[in-house]
């Protein structure tokens, strides 16, 4: 198993700049060694303002792409509407003193809590109520995986299936990879490559690099560790 992290252009350039500063400072290290070290640490540390801005943008994008609970909303709205219209019809019927044959009111109005079905009804109401409150409160997994944007009023997201497919296509672009499966987990992207090739080490590195490059060009928010697994095709 090879673990490859997607390359970050800014991080690399910062690192390169830091190395350059170290090599330059090395010549004068005998004069101000402590100053040199603190400069390197400052360069290697992420810029606080930039990190905070990126974090804010990522949270904002995730909040916008959060699921709105539309299917559950449609179901609750439909049940509520049907029940409320039925009660309204019963009230109008009572006002007009014109009882209908399909009215359920007489049976329900005689119902007491001693009825053997009542414990189950109360338990079901508790369970459904708890489920609905949980659905309303829990943020839920975003519908799309957010990508970095420059403009604040634009949110770009890629579907999870689309991300899996484009990463699988990147992995299949490597010579020797016959099949590729991608699994998206929280903070981790697992790429399984099926191959007949004997050169496993090179293939692992090449697949990791291809997937990392694709992730870098996509510029997803957050850190995503890429795990590449190699599997030999069954004969």
């Amino acid at each position, binding site marked *: 198993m090879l673990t490859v992290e997607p390359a970050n252009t800014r991080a690399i350039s910062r690192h390169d700049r830091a190395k350059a500063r170290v090599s330059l400072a090395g010549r004068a290290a005998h004069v101000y060694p402590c100053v040199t070290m603190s400069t390197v640490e400052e360069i290697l540390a992420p810029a606080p303002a930039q990190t905070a801005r990126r974090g804010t943008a990522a949270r904002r994008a995730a909040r916008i792409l959060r699921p709105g609970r539309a299917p559950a909303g449609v179901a609750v709205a439909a049940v509520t509407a049907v029940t409320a219209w039925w009660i309204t019809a019963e009230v109008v019927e009572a006002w007009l003193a014109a009882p209908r044959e399909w009215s359920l009111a007489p049976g329900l109005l005689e119902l007491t809590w001693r009825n053997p079905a009542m414990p189950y009804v109360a338990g079901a109401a508790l369970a459904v109520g708890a489920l609905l409150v949980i659905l309303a409160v829990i943020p839920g997994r975003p519908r799309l995986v957010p990508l970095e944007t420059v*403009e604040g009023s634009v949110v*770009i997201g890629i579907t999870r299936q689309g991300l899996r497919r484009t990463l699988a296509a990147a992995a299949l672009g490597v010579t020797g990879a016959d099949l590729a499966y991608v699994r998206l987990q929280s903070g981790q992207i697992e790429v399984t490559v099926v191959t007949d090739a004997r050169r496993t080490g090179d293939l692992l590195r090449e697949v990791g690099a291809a997937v990392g490059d694709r992730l870098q060009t996509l510029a997803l928010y957050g850190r995503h560790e890429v795990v590449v697994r190699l599997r030999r095709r069954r004969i």
Partner: protein
Amino acid sequence: MRPPLGDRIGIGVAGAVLLWAGGYGLWALQARPDLKVFDLEYLAGSPWARSIGGALVALLAMAATRWLVLSLGWRRYGSREGTGTAMLGVALQSVDGVDRLQVRVVGGRRTEITVRCRPGAPLGELARLLDRQAVSRVRGVLGPYSALPVVVRLHVRRR
């Protein structure tokens, strides 16, 4: 840009009512088993209470119907903007592998752009182009909706 909260608020209120009703039912099973589940004697004895109760139920029915219609229809899917889609096609013509484009204005609250691509399409380049040029060009032809926030949905088809 504010995420849609209407469904969550409605679901939360309905869940809280069901939780209260279930808890009350479990209490009444033990404490007052002979009590009627739907005791409407007070409403039957007072014409004013009956009228107000009927009006409240009718209001609830209309509100729930409006919620249902909005959830199923216009608020969710919005209306297509042909001019915006055409402009998006012009803006993305330099990118290979774009399969399908759509621009919709959803509920006068936001613009949704859907882009479907083939697996080999350069998605990174496409996202940068959308972010830096294409979205602003689409906004330019949307008229009164040009100031709305934009959500872009990228998808990759199977083959």
